[in-house]
């Protein structure tokens, strides 16, 4: 281990790239350094998290009591649509790309991402895309209000915002595809000598699989919205029944993208948690290779289950059976993962620092989201659940205590390596407990609302749904306010106690052999082969 630490420092101080970052705004606008770009992605995603979160609070404020209180129904629909688009494409995905930018080169012993200039473009396209999307709020007819799924013919009734929506989705797609190309090329070509694929850390593995998913499905979304654009402005009838087209075909194409998209948002979360649990259990990850095969299986299955999102449009019984059983099959590799995380903790010398707490909550609460997903996969039951708050409860359990908690866990875990300072553990734990309590107060009652028949995407509801809606709204406000603690913890971390290189006693892997904070240019000299294998000893 001593050798590893010394080599890490030697690589950092080799002097091959001894110039520091550029000064002022040029450092960020012209950034090609993976750490700078990673930081920009993370800050951007945090801003979008609060922007999209404020829209969620508009929704929950309106739903606090029955009746129309604060916003008109058209604006309410704009909020649900924009909230989803911003959270999916602006908050969760860029956060994972930020973590990938920061950590993949450090973990595989590469000096930077393989295509740093393209990396710059990948990031800077995003603020342009979201400025365009946000600007639609001020356009005649308002922002898009058809839901993030953009189903025709409803979406074609969008006002002036329509072409801006399509353009911004194209830009998000281009950004994601370029980011995915960079991740794949970096991992395939720039690993430390002797770091074979199966010796890569799980975070790197899950991101490699995610990047392939992105390459396969983001162009499909782009194709779908291109066809929407031509239907609206160029006289085609891809999805217009009046012209011989088929609106259901859009749903098939959208969900061929949309279901793998779910795994794009959760596989990197699996990777983060697979790094953290072994560290705080002081054991190596149980079943590393089986985790790789499970993640690959999940990725494969994600391509053949899309129609479970649209059982109610009507399809042959054989089709329903196929998509139902294929969806249930995903529980097998996911179960392997949950088993391996539990087995890693089994008889480990566990401690419960903030990253571990978020990871444990992830395992428990994501599993709840997985179980409700299994319920939704049952075709005859889904006829009842479809478009109810049960669906809202399900995907929020997967995305908030799932993806968002994993992002928080990763941020706390690697923050000392990024800043060189420890964060305030007491505040971190306060953030965790408040988030965990309020996330359940917000989303658990939605299961009951859905089972009782409350439809989603409505600004008003029958009085029998009042109590659970009020509880959910209180929880949402509490969750939103709790996130301000995280902002303070990050800001305060720049003045915290100095972090050691290894930071966490049980941490293994190349990134922990570098100094804290990680030097601006790291691994200018590739790490020695023996060090690359150190994480597995």
């Amino acid at each position: 281990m001593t050798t590893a630490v010394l080599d890490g420092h030697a690589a950092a101080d080799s002097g091959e790239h001894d110039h520091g970052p550029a000064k002022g705004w040029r450092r960020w606008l012209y950034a090609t350094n993976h750490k700078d770009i990673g930081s920009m992605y993370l800050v951007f995603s945090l801003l979008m998290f609060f922007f999209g979160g404020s829209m969620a609070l508009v929704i929950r404020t309106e739903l606090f009591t029955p009746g129309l209180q604060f916003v008109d129904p058209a604006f309410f629909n704009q909020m649900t649509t924009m909230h989803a688009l911003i959270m999916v494409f602006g908050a969760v995905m860029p956060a994972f790309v930020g973590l990938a930018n920061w950590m993949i080169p450090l973990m595989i012993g590469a000096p930077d991402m393989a295509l740093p200039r393209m990396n710059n473009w990948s990031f800077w396209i995003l603020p342009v895309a979201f400025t365009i999307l946000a600007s639609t709020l001020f356009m005649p007819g308002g922002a898009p209000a058809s839901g993030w799924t953009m189903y025709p013919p409803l979406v074609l009734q969008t006002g002036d915002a329509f072409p801006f929506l399509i353009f911004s989705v194209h830009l998000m797609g281009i950004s994601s595809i370029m980011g995915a190309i960079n991740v794949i090329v970096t991992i395939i070509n720039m690993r430390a000598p002797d770091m074979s694929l199966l010796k890569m850390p799980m975070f790197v593995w899950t991101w490699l699989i995610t990047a392939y998913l992105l390459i396969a499905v983001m162009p499909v979304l782009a194709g779908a919205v291109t066809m929407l654009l031509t239907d609206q402005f160029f006289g085609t009838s891809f999805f217009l029944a009046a012209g011989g087209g088929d609106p259901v075909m859009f749903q098939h194409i959208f969900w061929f993208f949309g279901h793998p998209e779910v795994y794009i948002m959760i596989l990197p979360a699996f990777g983060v948690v697979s790094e953290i649990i072994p560290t705080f259990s002081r054991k190596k990850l149980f079943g590393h290779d089986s985790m790789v095969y499970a993640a690959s299986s999940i990725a494969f299955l994600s391509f053949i289950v899309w129609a479970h999102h649209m059982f109610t449009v009507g399809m042959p019984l054989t089709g329903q059976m196929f998509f139902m059983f294929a969806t249930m099959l995903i529980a097998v590799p996911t179960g392997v993962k949950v088993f391996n995380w539990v087995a890693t903790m089994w008889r480990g010398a566990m401690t419960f620092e903030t990253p571990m707490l978020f990871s444990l909550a992830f395992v428990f609460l994501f599993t709840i989201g997985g179980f409700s997903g299994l319920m939704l996969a049952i075709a005859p039951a889904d006829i009842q659940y479809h478009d109810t708050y049960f669906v809202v409860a399900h995907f929020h359990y997967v995305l908030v205590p799932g993806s968002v908690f994993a992002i928080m866990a990763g941020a706390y875990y690697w923050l000392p390596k990024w800043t060189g300072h420890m964060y305030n553990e007491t505040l971190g734990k306060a953030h965790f407990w408040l988030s965990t309590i309020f996330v359940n107060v917000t989303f658990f009652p939605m299961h009951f609302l859905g089972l009782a028949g409350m439809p989603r995407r409505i600004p008003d509801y029958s009085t029998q749904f009042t109590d659970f809606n009020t509880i959910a709204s209180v929880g949402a406000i509490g969750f939103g306010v709790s996130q301000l603690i995280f902002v303070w913890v990050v800001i305060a971390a720049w003045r915290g106690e100095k972090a050691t290189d290894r930071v966490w006693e049980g941490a293994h892997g190349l990134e922990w052999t570098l100094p804290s904070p990680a030097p601006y240019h790291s691994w200018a000299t590739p790490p020695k082969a023996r060090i690359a294998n150190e994480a597995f000893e």
Partner: protein
Amino acid sequence: MSEAERKKNIRRTALIVGAVALAFYIGFIAMGVLRS
């Protein structure tokens, strides 16, 4: 592996992956054209 060889591999991998993405984009639109 030499630096030149690594750069060549990086360029080749990026072009292949980019081509796959382009094929999915064009392929799905072509499927829409053939069905409509």
